[in-house]
């Protein structure tokens, strides 16, 4: 596995998700946290954009942020807690937070 990309900005207000998708490789992962979980909103442009990520690239979302916003995640999203976040930070070669 290569890079775990971490987003926290709303994909509706901000261009980070688009740029992240350009940089991602098939071995990368994408973790949605904070307002970035709004990308899970069905029927929206960011939700469609998420599906353009390289085949094989995994998708994670911080469970507490999804719950806080009354969203739900599809089968292709692994909902994680902080212990799992720590684990992923070790499993991937590097963590790239889009600050």
């Amino acid at each position, binding site marked *: 596995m290569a890079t775990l990309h971490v987003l926290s900005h*709303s994909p509706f*207000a901000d261009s980070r998700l688009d740029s992240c998708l350009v940089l991602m490789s098939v071995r990368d992962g994408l973790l949605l946290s*904070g307002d970035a979980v*709004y990308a899970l*909103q069905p029927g*929206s442009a960011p939700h469609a954009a998420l599906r353009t990520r390289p085949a094989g690239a995994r998708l994670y979302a911080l469970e507490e*942020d999804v719950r*806080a916003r*009354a969203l739900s995640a599809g089968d292709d999203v692994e909902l994680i807690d902080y212990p799992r976040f720590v684990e992923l930070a070790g499993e991937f070669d590097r963590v790239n937070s889009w600050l």
Partner: protein
Amino acid sequence: MARSLLLIARQAPWSGLAAREALDIVLAGGAFDLPMAMLFLDDGVFQLAAAQQPAAVQQKDLTANLQALQLFGVEELYAAGRSLRERGLAEDALGLPVRLLDDAELTALLDRFDEVITL
């Protein structure tokens, strides 16, 4: 006659103090019986979603403050239909009664107020 103020709330609810502090402006104006209204635009419409659980991220529920608006005499609450549609939010998924406006109505709304603050 008192000068009227429209607050345009563009911020998602749980990303820091922005949404809360915007709302506080309106609540403070309501306490003085000033003519105030709120328009939820862009990510601001996420403030209206039902069944949110901010306790999951240790935040206080903004919804209680939003519902207090009417008690403070702030009865004009609007949301941009365009912003809801872009975000896949249906009108019946909202937890607060607001009037949805189309683009032409948004333009007309601004012209009715003496001042506007967009946050």
